[in-house]
């Protein structure tokens, strides 16, 4: 029966090239856009190396110091007593009036070292600085290097792919060894090759020389915690930075929880630290707070500039969802509309089928099936288009470093979407068709 439906559907589609074209146009482009959106979502929020444990990470990018201003209000109640005398009741209340002085930025190593080492439910953690930048000039060629200073924990939190060599370890960090882990791109730009021979070579960075101990694959994701070209032990940073006892500095912290569900506990411990923190008496500010968050929270917060992460997520994702809904609803409506208008056109066909023994269910199945065939063809075209667009985007760096990909998981989502699209756009028209009354249609 399926084969009959299939050949029949294809025949009908071939006989009406105009309608087939209109439908396919709409379906394929819509599904292509959907495809690209899923792929983008996956690239932005999916777990990719070296951030494979994305769902266990808690980011603490900065510290905020603030002083709240309070309004003091006196309320005076006047009460007239029975004897005509007046009595006064006064009440003083102090409430924050909404304005505050604040200042925020990343932290000093000293501060992190002193306060953020002993949290529970932490599998591993790292303090690192992503703020430095070194330009090395080789024979008139500029090699720009984003320089990260990191501790040994960095290589546990993030699972970089080492092409050659190994990460630096706790000993290197403790002794301040001048060793470096570089990305394959940095190796290619500086040494002209990515090979085992590079490991052990020296690099001249400013006035100092560093020995390469490992080459990692450059992460193709837009995550500021892993975007370095070169990674150096934290102890090799400018000594003033390393020993500074200020709160501010270039460092941030990332914690890997023992399980995704334990992230909340780490956040609470960080907030507890802030709540119970004794500010040094000479400080201009009274309180501190950190805004620790998961990757999605930090992303939403920085995109819409909102410090309350729950609110930020809503502010970011509701408009995106509405837009997506509109962009999907229109082609879907269009297809339903087209299909329904064709119900009338095919009334006599349906009536004849019924006269020769098709029952309503047969008709319903037939038209839904026809529509599914159409959506699948459209879906395949859309898939091809999406692959082309993804190739184009990747080849031209249109999204910067981010690479769109096409995973098996995406493909299954995609099949599901095609199926839903086909069902939705076919159901109402097919239902109307199946209800066609034979008597009137064959008059």
């Amino acid at each position: 029966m399926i084969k009959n439906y299939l050949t029949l559907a294809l025949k009908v589609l071939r006989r009406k090239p105009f309608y087939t074209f209109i439908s396919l146009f709409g379906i394929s482009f819509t599904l292509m856009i959907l495809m690209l959106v899923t792929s983008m979502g996956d690239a932005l929020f999916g777990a990719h190396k070296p951030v494979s444990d994305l769902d266990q990470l808690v980011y603490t990018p900065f510290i905020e110091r603030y002083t709240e201003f309070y309004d003091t209000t006196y309320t005076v109640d006047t009460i007239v007593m029975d004897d005509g005398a007046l009595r006064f009741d006064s009440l003083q209340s102090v409430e924050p009036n909404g304005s505050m002085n604040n200042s925020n930025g990343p932290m000093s190593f000293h501060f992190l070292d002193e306060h953020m080492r002993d949290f529970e439910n932490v599998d591993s953690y790292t303090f690192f600085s992503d703020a430095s930048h070194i330009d090395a000039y080789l024979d008139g060629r500029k090699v720009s290097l984003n320089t990260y200073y990191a501790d040994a924990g960095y290589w546990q939190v993030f699972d970089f792919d080492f092409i050659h060599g190994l990460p630096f370890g706790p000993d290197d960090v403790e002794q301040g060894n001048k060793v470096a882990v570089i990305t394959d791109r940095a190796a290619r730009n500086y040494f002209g090759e990515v090979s085992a021979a590079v490991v052990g070579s020296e690099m001249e960075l400013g006035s100092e020389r560093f020995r390469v101990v490992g080459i990692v694959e450059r992460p193709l994701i837009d995550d500021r915690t892993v975007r370095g070209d070169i990674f150096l032990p934290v102890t090799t940073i400018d000594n003033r930075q390393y020993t500074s006892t200020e709160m501010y500095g270039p460092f941030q912290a990332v914690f890997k929880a023992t399980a995704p569900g334990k992230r909340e506990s780490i956040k609470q411990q960080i907030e507890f630290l802030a709540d119970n923190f004794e500010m040094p008496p000479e400080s201009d500010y009274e309180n501190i707070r950190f805004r620790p968050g998961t990757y999605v929270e930090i992303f939403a917060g920085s995109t819409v500039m909102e410090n309350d992460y729950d609110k930020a997520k809503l502010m970011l994702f509701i408009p995106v969802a509405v837009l997506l809904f509109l962009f999907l609803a229109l082609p879907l409506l269009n297809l339903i509309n087209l299909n329904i208008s064709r119900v009338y056109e095919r009334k006599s066909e349906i009536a004849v089928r019924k006269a020769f023994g098709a029952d309503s269910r047969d008709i319903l199945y037939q038209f839904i099936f026809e529509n599914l065939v159409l959506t699948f063809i459209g879906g395949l075209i859309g898939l091809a288009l999406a692959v082309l667009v993804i190739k184009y985007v990747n080849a031209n760096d249109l999204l910067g470093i981010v690479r769109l990909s096409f995973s098996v998981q995406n493909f299954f989502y995609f099949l599901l979407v095609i199926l839903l699209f086909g069902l939705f756009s076919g159901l109402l028209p097919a239902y109307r068709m199946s209800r066609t009354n034979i008597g009137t249609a064959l008059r």
Partner: protein
Amino acid sequence: MIELQNISKSYRTDTIETLALQHMNLSVPAGEFLSIMGPSGCGKSTLLNIMGLIDEPTEGRVALAGKEVTNYNGSKVARFRNEQLGFIFQSFHLINDLSVVDNVELPLLYRRVSGKERRRLALEALERVGLSNRANHFPTQLSGGQKQRVAIARAIVGRPNIILADEPTGNLDSHMGDEIMDILTRLNQELGTTIVMVTHDERMAKKTHRLVRLSDGERVS
């Protein structure tokens, strides 16, 4: 083969009730070629629709091929139509998007018949109406007479016991009409199919076994 007892049919709109058939009794034995005549609006199409289970009577009972079918519901009716009945319409009602042979195969689609078998049966039916050379044409490429012959092939491909024909020659000139009548007569004789035909044409009616005349929803002969 067909038993109609005390059939009445009325159409109700908001204000008026129109009576299309009144207490009709009709019995058609197996193998008979029966024609029904009458002026426009006398209820002959309604009668045919009721026999074909396309329409339901307001009152009375219908039995086809020895089975009481008055209370058959949706899918049972569909099943029954598919196996027992073949239809021929005045305006052919071929599906323009399908080729001739696909049109003929249509009734078999709703049975469990393999694709090869369907094709064989359809070509055989086309052979019977003399159109096997047009199997892969499309309806729009055919003349009126040819279209009606395709429609007949479609009606007989499922080997139904009863064929119901609603003015099969009405849209055709007399020469083509005669051809169609010859085919129907031959079907009746060779396969023993019971045929009920509504017609306007006295000449065609004369070629059948028996003639029933209707007027204002009642049998007059």
